[in-house]
Structures are given as structure tokens and as C-alpha cells.
């Protein structure tokens, strides 16, 4: 991933400010609690949810197992239908390809459908550097772009803003980008939506180039699918003459039929709807309907590195529904910005350190941004065992070991800052291997128990700041066992 979040502090530091912001806490609590109850209802309507979830998991696993084959099949189908396929190994390559395609049209502005992949590669900034202006058209992305802000949620990137803040941003900033907001704009959601409609209308109608991502790509038919609500997606996918879609390689599914699973699980998991308002499906180009040129840019950018990890590869099953964010107690309190990535929340905590590696402070801290409660796994419509991957990544951070970066095998060094933890673990391993020393140590600990501090000194203070140290018993268990023959003597 690229530079948008370079220099982010580690998660605990970034979250520290967020948890002390009462407005942010209130906005997040309101939004996540609203959607939680609605999602549960929408999922409850389908008696076969567990079977759909299992089918979704198996489709994705099967695809990932044969990813090379399905990518080649997809390329063939898209090309046969009139599209052009490009391959981008990393963010820079993808940005270069898109910038070149836009330049070749002679245009200097593009309209964009909300897309995580283009956020991930920092496409807007890259285009800006080439003198191409990218207009975000999703309402929440517009709020983020106008407010010169960062996204904080996969589905609703402006979830950290309440309606009053949105009104202020619209009033202040819309004029700089095009049609200003009406002077008497209030903070009712309908009026805010209307202001966005008017502001973006002129841009849609004159746009010659559209840029999108995709939720699914069908290898068998070459069909791309975009799931959306507002109609901005349809505008960008059908009105321009040229359409460029940047899509992660893990978004491919083998067959048309596979959509019957995901079109049931995705809307209910993300916006808690039986079906989202608009879904567009297109296969290459169609004569006299929609764009005359279609380019598909297949993006790796760390995905194959993730695929190389036996435990971590399941993260590639993700269909970006964001249900895991909405149920996460850590996300609810810390907000999305603290995760230092376009992928926040539980899925971000396992995806970002795999796509970007664990070298930076923020990425090394993300596997710890969890209480391992497991709510994320429970709601995941493709059954990603997020806690399992979190623990696996913690091990990788602390212990180091083999991994794959940019396609090359590397051996990661153990992270700094875990020296005390490693030393404690080494000492424990030694003590458990030497019963005599263990017994002596335990007896010493029992006899001195009145002198034990309640909190740990030095680097241990942070750990014991939120936990009670366990009290040491008056007598070690093994001494008690020997003395009483396992309690058979009835002695205390």
C-alpha cells in the first residue's frame, strides 16, 4: 500500500486520542449499534445462512487454490468480450497504467466510484501529480474528499462524521470543487443527499472517463459486478466513454452461478438490506450502451504475499462487507483512523500487516488491536477466522521468521520492543524444564508474597495498569499435593 498513512503512530497511541474524543465516540456508537441490530434481522430472514456462509468460504478457497488458472480464464473472457486486461504487481505500476490510460483519452478529469483498491494504491494522489483531477462520487467519499479527511470505515468512510459536521463541510468546501451547497442547507440527511446530488450531477453528465473497482469478477463469463446504493456507480459505469476498473486479483470467482451466494450474503452483511438499491453487471463492452472502451487493471500489491501464508491467506476471502467493523468493541471505541490504513477494524488488523508487511510501527501493532473476543469471526459471511490470524501475526511480529515480501522469500527479524516478553518466555521455558529450580522458585515466591507489589515496575507498568497481578498462593500447588496426598487427608 502507499504513502497516505506513512508515519502513522502505533495503534495504541493513535487510539488514545480517539477514545478521548466524545463526539467521535458518540458518532461511532450510534452508527455501529444501528447497523448491528439491522444486520441481525436481515441475516435472520435466511434460514440457510450457515450453508450460504460455508458455500461462500469454499468458493473463495477453491478460487484461491487455483488462482492462476482463474485469472487466466478471466483474462480470456474479458478480452473476448471487448475489454483490455492489464496486470499491476504493485501500487506504482497500477497508478502508472491508469494515468497512461487517462492521458491517452486526452481528458484531465475522471469520476470515481468508491473503490477500496484505488484507495489502497493512492490513485487520486498519483493522478493529481499527473495533472488529472479525480472526483469521488460516493456520498461518504465525497465528504472525506471535501473535508481533506481520511476514510475510517470500509463501507461508510465518513462514519466518524455526524450530520452536523457533514453540513458544515458541504457549506464550506463544495464551492471550491464545483457547484456550491445551497445557502440554507440544514443537517437533515435528505437535504444533505440532495446537495450531493446537485453538486455531482454536472460532473457525471460531462465525464468522459470513469474509474471503478469491482466486488466480483466472474472468470467463466468475464462479467464484473459493482454493488452500490446511490446510483453514482451506475453513472460512472455507464455515462463515460472510457471505463477503467482497478480490481484486486482475489476478487475473481469461477462461475456465474457463484454470484447466487454472494449476492445474498453481501448486502445483508454490509448495509443490512435484502438487496442493495443498485447492482451493475457488465461483460466487456456493449454496442451503443455504456463505455466504448473498457480496461481492467488486475492488482497484486501484496496479495500474492498474503497468499503465501498458510494461516493468513484466508484474509483474501474477504468480500469487504464491513460487518466485522460494525460488531468490533475495539473499532467502536478507537474508530477507523487509528488503524492507519484504508482497511480498518478487525479485517484491517489482519489485512494491512499482510499486504504491507510488519516492518512499520503501525503494522507491527495492528495484530494487537483486538481483545480476541471473536465477534468478527461470528459475523463474517465468508468465515474468516480473524482471531486465529491475529494470533498468528502476533507470533510473526514477536518471533520473526520466514515470510514473503514482493514475491521474495525473506526471514523477518523479531520486532524490537518485545525483548522483555521474549526473555520472560525463555525463562519460563527453562524453569519448566528444570523441576528443582521451579520448585525452589515457587517456594520463594510463596514465602515473599506479602512483599509483592500490586503493579509491575518499569516496562511492565503499562501491562499491569489495566490488570490485577494474580495473587501467589501461600503454598505451591505441588507442595500442597504432596503434603495432603491430593487432598485425601482432608487437610486444608
Amino acid at each position, binding site marked *: 500500500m502507499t504513502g497516505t498513512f506513512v508515519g502513522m503512530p502505533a495503534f495504541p497511541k493513535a487510539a488514545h486520542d480517539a477514545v478521548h474524543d466524545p463526539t467521535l465516540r458518540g458518532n461511532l456508537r450510534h*452508527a455501529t449499534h444501528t447497523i448491528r441490530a439491522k444486520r441481525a434481522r436481515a441475516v435472520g430472514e435466511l434460514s*440457510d445462512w450457515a450453508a450460504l456462509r460455508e*458455500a461462500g468460504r*469454499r468458493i473463495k478457497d477453491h478460487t484461491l487454490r487455483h488462482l492462476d488458472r482463474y485469472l487466466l480464464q478471466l483474462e480470456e473472457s474479458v478480452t473476448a468480450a471487448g475489454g483490455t486486461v492489464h496486470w499491476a504487481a504493485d501500487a506504482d505500476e497500477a497508478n502508472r497504467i491508469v494515468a497512461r490510460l487517462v492521458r491517452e483519452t486526452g481528458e484531465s478529469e475522471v469520476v470515481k466510484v468508491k473503490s477500496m483498491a484505488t484507495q489502497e494504491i493512492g490513485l487520486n494522489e498519483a493522478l493529481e501529480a499527473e495533472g488529472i483531477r479525480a472526483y469521488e462520487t460516493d456520498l461518504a467519499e465525497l465528504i472525506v474528499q471535501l473535508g481533506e479527511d481520511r476514510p475510517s470505515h470500509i463501507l461508510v468512510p465518513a462514519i466518524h462524521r455526524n450530520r452536523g459536521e457533514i453540513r458544515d463541510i458541504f457549506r464550506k468546501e463544495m464551492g471550491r470543487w464545483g457547484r456550491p451547497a445551497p445557502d440554507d442547507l440544514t443537517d437533515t440527511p435528505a437535504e444533505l443527499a440532495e446537495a450531493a446530488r446537485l453538486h455531482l450531477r454536472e460532473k457525471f453528465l*460531462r465525464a468522459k472517463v470513469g474509474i471503478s473497482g469491482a466486488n466480483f469478477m466472474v472468470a467463466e463469463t468475464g462479467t464484473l459486478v459493482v454493488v452500490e*446504493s446511490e446510483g453514482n456507480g*451506475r453513472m460512472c459505469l455507464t*455515462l463515460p466513454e472510457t471505463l477503467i476498473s482497478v480490481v484486486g486479483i482475489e476478487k475473481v470467482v469461477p462461475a456465474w452461478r457463484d454470484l447466487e451466494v454472494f449476492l445474498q450474503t453481501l448486502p445483508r452483511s454490509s448495509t443490512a438490506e435484502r438487496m442493495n438499491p*443498485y447492482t451493475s453487471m457488465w461483460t466487456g463492452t456493449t454496442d451503443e450502451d455504456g463505455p466504448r472502451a473498457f480496461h481492467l487493471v488486475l492488482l497484486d500489491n501484496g496479495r500474492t504475499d498474503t497468499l503465501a501464508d498458510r494461516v493468513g491467506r484466508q484474509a483474501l476471502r474477504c468480500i469487504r462487507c464491513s460487518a466485522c467493523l460494525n460488531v468490533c468493541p475495539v473499532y467502536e471505541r478507537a474508530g477507523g483512523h487509528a488503524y492507519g490504513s484504508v482497511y480498518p477494524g478487525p479485517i484491517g488488523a489482519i489485512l494491512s500487516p499482510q499486504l504491507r508487511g510488519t516492518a512499520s510501527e503501525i503494522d507491527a501493532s495492528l495484530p494487537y488491536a483486538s481483545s480476541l473476543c471473536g465477534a468478527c469471526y461470528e459475523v463474517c459471511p465468508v468465515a474468516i477466522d480473524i482471531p486465529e490470524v491475529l494470533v498468528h501475526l502476533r507470533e510473526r511480529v514477536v518471533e520473526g521468521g520466514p515470510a514473503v515480501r514482493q514475491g521474495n522469500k525473506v526471514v523477518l527479524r523479531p520486532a524490537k520492543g518485545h525483548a522483555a516478553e521474549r526473555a520472560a518466555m525463555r525463562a519460563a521455558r527453562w524453569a519448566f524444564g528444570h523441576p528443582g529450580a521451579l520448585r525452589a522458585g515457587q517456594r520463594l515466591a510463596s514465602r515473599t508474597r506479602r512483599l509483592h507489589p500490586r503493579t509491575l515496575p518499569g516496562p511492565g507498568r503499562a501491562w499491569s495498569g489495566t490488570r490485577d497481578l494474580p495473587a501467589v498462593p501461600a503454598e505451591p500447588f505441588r507442595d500442597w499435593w504432596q503434603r495432603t496426598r491430593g487432598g485425601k487427608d482432608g487437610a486444608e
Partner: protein
Amino acid sequence: MSGRERILGRVRRALADVAPDDRPYGEAVPRDYLREHGRRTVEETVELLAENLADYRAVVHRGTEDRLPALIGRLLAERGSREVLVPAGLPPAWTAAADAVRVDDRAADTPQRLDRVDSVVTGCAVAVAETGTIVLDGSPDQGRRRISLVPDHHICVVRVPDQVVSSVPQALERLDPGRPLTWISGPSATSDIELDRVEGVHGPRTLEVILLG
């Protein structure tokens, strides 16, 4: 090395440790989920479609072939529409009783021109009862994708029960992936403000569905 070779090489190396899996695709995925949820008569399925359309704020009407022109004429008049877009293959009788001027769906028209049209009338390819969805596939009675998008008022005629299926799996079976498809569930909406659904953003803010049978 091209990006293509690099990515495919990385994929193959990444999977080198995985045990071979030669199971064909058909056996790799269990399909023990339901083809439809619950058992309904044809009438009940149509009734469920009407309910779910209305639940997402589509306005539902019922009509018969002989009363359809009058109904469409009335809906356009109530809306005050001066111009109505019609796809090339829409039965001419459907808009025969309308006062609004008919505007043909032509490739040469600019989006700005379409933006000045008040309403559009289309048929549909299939409708899904369980989700309250209508699907357009660009057939002659539905026209180009943009005509059901730019005008603010969309009237969609669904032939019941022929065009109605119960579920998403059944809808996909009927559709041709080679055609450009638009799945529509209610009027344009957003959940972007405080994760609560608000109707009316970029697509038609009023969706009227006529169940014709």
C-alpha cells in the same frame, strides 16, 4: 518481466506448499443452501414481491393490459411530466394515453439531454420476490442502461407472474451474463449518513412498479 508473468509466478510459488487439489469445481463447493426460502403459491410470490418493493419505498401499482395505457398516463400526469423517455421496443400502446411528449432512446443523445427528461417507462427482464428487486437487461423494451438512471422518475412494468421468480439463485438462472444487467431494489438511496438509509441520491428518486397481469 511483465506484470502478468510476475503476478502469475508469485501466485504459483505462493501455492507451492499446498497439497494438489484436482477436484473439479463442481465438487469443491457444497450447494446445500436453498434455491428459494419458503414454499409459496404463484399468487403469494407476487404478493411478496409487492410487499418487498414497497418496503424499500418503491410505489407499487397493479394493472391489466387494457387498462395499462390509462394507468401510465395518469402516473405521468400526476407527476407533471412533460417528456417521457421510451426504449425502442416498448409496446407503443403503453404510452399511447400519455399527454407527455415521447422521447426516443437514441444513442446520439447526450447525457445532458436525458437529464431534461422528466420520466422513463421500461419493461424488465425478471423480478425477484424475496428481495424486492427488478432486473433490467437492455432488451428492446428496456433500452440502454442510462435511460433508467438519469431521469428522476422511473416507471417499470413487470409482467406477472411470468417475469417473477422467488429468489436470487432463480433470477441468475434466467439472466444472460453477456448482456449489461442492472439490478434495482427501490429508489436510489444511501446509508452514508450515520449508517441509516435515506432515499434519493443520484438515481431516480421515484420508482413506480406496475405489476401487469
